């Protein structure tokens, strides 16, 4: 009897275990396996995504470096080609100035215009302009050669304006009227109204004194005083510069070097027998060097954005 009951109990327990395994453990196991697959799948896909983005990043970096290299090579080649062309143009134009007796005034002026329009950011063209001016012997206002002088001054003014447009964008400026009649009446210098300008967070005070004016040569002797307050102390750093100002002063070339890689220049806008008009501009020193800032901008933009050109600029252009 006891054996029968024991067998019955064992059978009962066996069926209960079977029931437990088939009813509960089976589905739970599938669930666990499914969850494990899900987790491993999620982790795996994440890992793959990270790998792909890392690869893309490195590829983009390589592409950026390649783009920089291609761009710099292109620029170098273009620069070399331009330099060859400029060299030829410069040499042929220089011939006119080295042999002035063999060339007419008209040819000389035309060559100066060519030189000025192509090299105004690189060379100091003031001596050429002065040389040509000396070649124009104007006897009176009604002299036909007066037109040559007007043309010479117009060329100089157009170059000055071109340069000023670039410099005003990054710098600060102010203009003043010079009463030449008053200058003739007073003894000593004529002080113009002072002004303070802030460029790249640096504030400077500018005082301009006009000492003399030459109506015939349309030039003025100017004294410029620049004061910069030092940040750490109450000391003031003063720069005094004295020079002749005429239509042939080009701000990218004829400028005063200031601390923190900044420059200051004065240009002559107009000059008459009774009045003159001048503009002072302060700008970052990088603009005083031809071409370089534009390349810098491109490379900097390329490194930051990974794009060769600013898309917004292209949109505006097209």
């Amino acid at each position, binding site marked *: 009897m006891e054996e029968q009951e024991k067998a019955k109990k064992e059978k009962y327990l066996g069926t209960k275990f079977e029931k437990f395994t088939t009813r509960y453990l089976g589905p739970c196991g599938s669930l666990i396996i499914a969850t494990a697959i899900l987790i491993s799948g999620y982790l795996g896909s994440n890992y793959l995504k990270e790998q792909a983005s890392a690869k893309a990043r490195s590829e983009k970096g390589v592409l950026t470096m390649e783009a920089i290299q291609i761009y710099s090579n292109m620029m170098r080649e273009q620069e070399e080609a331009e330099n060859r062309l400029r060299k030829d143009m410069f040499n042929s134009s220089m011939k006119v100035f080295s042999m002035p007796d063999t060339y007419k005034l008209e040819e000389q002026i035309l060559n100066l215009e060519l030189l000025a329009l192509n090299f105004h950011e690189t060379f100091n063209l003031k001596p050429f302009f002065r040389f040509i001016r000396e070649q124009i012997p104007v006897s009176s206002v009604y002299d036909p050669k007066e037109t040559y002088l007007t043309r010479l001054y117009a060329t100089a003014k157009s170059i000055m304006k071109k340069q000023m447009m670039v410099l005003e964008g990054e710098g600060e*400026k*102010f*203009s003043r*009227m010079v009463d030449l009649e008053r200058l003739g009446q007073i003894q000593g210098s004529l002080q113009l*109204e002072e002004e303070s300008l802030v460029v790249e967070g640096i504030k400077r005070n500018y005082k301009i004194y006009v000492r003399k004016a030459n109506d015939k040569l349309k030039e003025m002797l100017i004294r410029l005083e620049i004061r910069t307050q030092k940040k750490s102390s109450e000391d003031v750093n003063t720069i005094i510069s004295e020079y002749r100002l005429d239509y042939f002063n080009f701000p990218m070339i004829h400028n005063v070097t200031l601390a923190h890689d900044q420059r200051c220049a004065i240009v002559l*806008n*107009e000059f008459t027998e009774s009045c003159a008009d001048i503009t002072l501009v302060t700008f970052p020193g990088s603009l005083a060097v031809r071409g370089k800032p534009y390349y810098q901008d491109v490379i900097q933009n390329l490194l930051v954005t990974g794009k060769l050109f600013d898309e917004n600029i292209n949109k505006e252009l097209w």
Partner: protein
Amino acid sequence: MKKYLIVILFLLLNTTIAFSGEIYGTIKKDGKPIAEGSEIELEMLTSGKTYSSKCAKYGSYSLYVPGKGRGLLIIRNEELMSEPILIYIYENAIQYDFVLEEKNGSFLVRRR
């Protein structure tokens, strides 16, 4: 007769070109462009004639003056009337950027 007419016309045209000036630029007050429609009035000291123009958007203006010499410029609108500032008109166009500054109830014009 035709020759004389051509010569006279040429001289007249040349005189107009030689003695015609223009001033242009922008006017700001408190760092902002002055209101559109503000009036710029210039009284030439040599001839006594008055010329005026109105400010466009962004405080920009342009005033054609037939002649050269000194003149007094006044800026005014519904809110203000500036003190006169002495300027010079040249044969060529010239830029005059101005800043209006309030001092003791009156508006001073400073050149920038």
